[in-house]
């Protein structure tokens, strides 16, 4: 019901923690390594190890895990759907339930739980970056990491700016989507009734106003940015110049230890 009432992905969670204080470039790269580590986990034990590390990282970031899970919001559905598909399409081992073409088997359940957990951990790992890093910092990291490619003609600064603004507006669009949803429900739309019948029309009733609003925002925002002398990346300074500190060393060490441990854990026989 309450779309937009909860914290969502991309929303920064202000806190005073080791992870928050890390250099965004380091966090950006390390979150890639962290996701790789989750992918490396091929056994339940290894996945459990990866999960322990991620829980530990959330502890270090002082973000309540429940909040982080809540922040995943609709993406949880993605996890559930993936799991469901695995239940239905992976066959083998003992069969628990069979009805027509639907067959739920031991392997299917196992695979669903495993893939579901893995996807869930991946999402948690990803949102650790956005929860602990402001959009401008993510932008800056992205931009700096791309900077060497600017000579090859990649518009690094522009890409960074686009990313930053997209992230800044994400929570706002979720709020607006919530209002549009409630307004259309007030006009008798039943999004819960039958998602297959008239689904397109329901989607239009939500998405068209949202896009219209995005265009409106874009128009004034660009004027407002110009009015504040925005003229691309040339000669811009930054309020917080990025600097690597001991925290980034510690963070790198922790994530590398995680990667090594997860890989090693793959060899522990179940």
């Amino acid at each position, binding site marked *: 019901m309450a779309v937009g009432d909860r914290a969502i992905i991309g*929303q*920064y969670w*202000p806190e005073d923690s080791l992870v928050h204080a890390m250099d965004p470039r380091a966090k950006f790269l390390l979150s890639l390594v962290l996701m790789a580590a989750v992918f490396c986990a091929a056994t339940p034990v290894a996945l459990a190890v990866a999960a322990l590390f991620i829980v530990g990282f959330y502890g270090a970031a002082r973000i309540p895990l429940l909040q982080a899970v809540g922040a995943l919001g609709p993406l949880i559905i993605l996890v559930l759907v993936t799991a469901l598909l695995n239940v239905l399409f992976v066959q083998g081992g003992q069969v628990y339930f069979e009805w027509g073409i639907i067959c739920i088997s031991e392997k299917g359940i196992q695979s669903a739980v495993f893939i579901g957990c893995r996807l869930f951990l991946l999402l948690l790992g990803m949102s650790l970056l956005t929860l602990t890093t*402001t*959009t*401008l910092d993510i932008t800056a990291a992205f931009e700096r990491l791309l900077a060497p490619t600017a000579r090859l003609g990649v518009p690094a600064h522009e890409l960074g700016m686009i990313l*930053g*603004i997209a*992230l*800044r507006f994400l*929570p*706002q669009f979720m709020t607006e989507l919530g209002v549009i949803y409630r307004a259309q429900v007030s006009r008798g739309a039943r999004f819960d009734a039958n998602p297959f019948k008239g689904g397109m029309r329901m989607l239009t009733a939500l998405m068209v106003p949202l896009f219209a609003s995005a265009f*409106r*925002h874009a128009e*004034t*925002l660009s*004027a*407002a*940015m*110009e*009015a*504040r*002398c*925005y*003229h691309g990346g040339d*000669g*811009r*300074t*930054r*309020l917080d*110049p990025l600097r690597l500190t001991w925290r980034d060393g510690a963070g790198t060490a922790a994530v590398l230890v995680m990667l090594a441990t997860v890989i090693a854990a793959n060899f522990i026989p179940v």
Partner: protein
Amino acid sequence: MTQRSENAPEAAVIAEAAEATEVVAAAVPGEAAAPDTFVDFRDAAFTYDGERFVFRDLNLTVPQGQFLCLLGGNGSGKSTLAKHINALLVPDEGAVEVFGCDTRDAESTYFIRSNAGLVFQNPDDQIVASLIENDVAFGPENLGVPNPELRERVTRALAEVGLQGFEKHETNALSGGQKQRVAIAGVLAMDPAILILDEATAMLDPRGRAGLLRVVRELHAAGMTVVMITHYMEEAAQAERVVVLDGGRVVLDGAPEDVLVRADELRALSLEVPFACRLSLALRAAGVPVAPCIADDDLKEELCALRSSR
């Protein structure tokens, strides 16, 4: 509150601006405008589509230090005018000079923009960053202001709008009034000499409006030139000068106590009339000899004086 410079704007940091400052010095003595004229519209005309003129033959000057309020119905050209002061738009005919620089001169664009800060109507459409400090720093970052000074400017600008200590707060969690104050801080951090508010209070609740107006008045008291566009008469009543636009022309121009009492003309332009004025007119119609006025307190005093004289 820091005392703002009483002189023409200081040189901004970027290279173009430095050149532009020299243009100011060279331009001022020879031009018709007095040296303390900050904004000068001379027979300016502007059209978006090449056919319909938003304004034509517009003449308007704003001297340094003035608190000017612009009124006008929808389509009167107020917002377009505001964008001309900031060089976001340039006139098709005639000229607009800001600090003595022609806004069409590309070299002075950033000099003008950094010195004529523009705040828009919708707070959500002008905040670029998720954290207050990053948003306030956006303008000076674009100007290339180096770091110790950049940080000082952010701190000072936030103090000027009464948000000191809120650097690390999220912009998304703020009320409309707070967002607008952040937007003003973002403009102040560029160290402007003029503050232009384009219906900046229109989407705020009464509390947010009152807070914003207080900030603007304080800035003006400290020397800031203010151009404020609004629908609200109680805001216009606080200005030093009120200019009413209609169809791109200045139709009324004067002190608020002279302009805002012209009830018939204001209503014809679909503008409101301040309560004290409405009441004083109703009183006159009922045979009470009071002068039309715009402040409740003045009217009250007058009525009390009448009462004791009888």
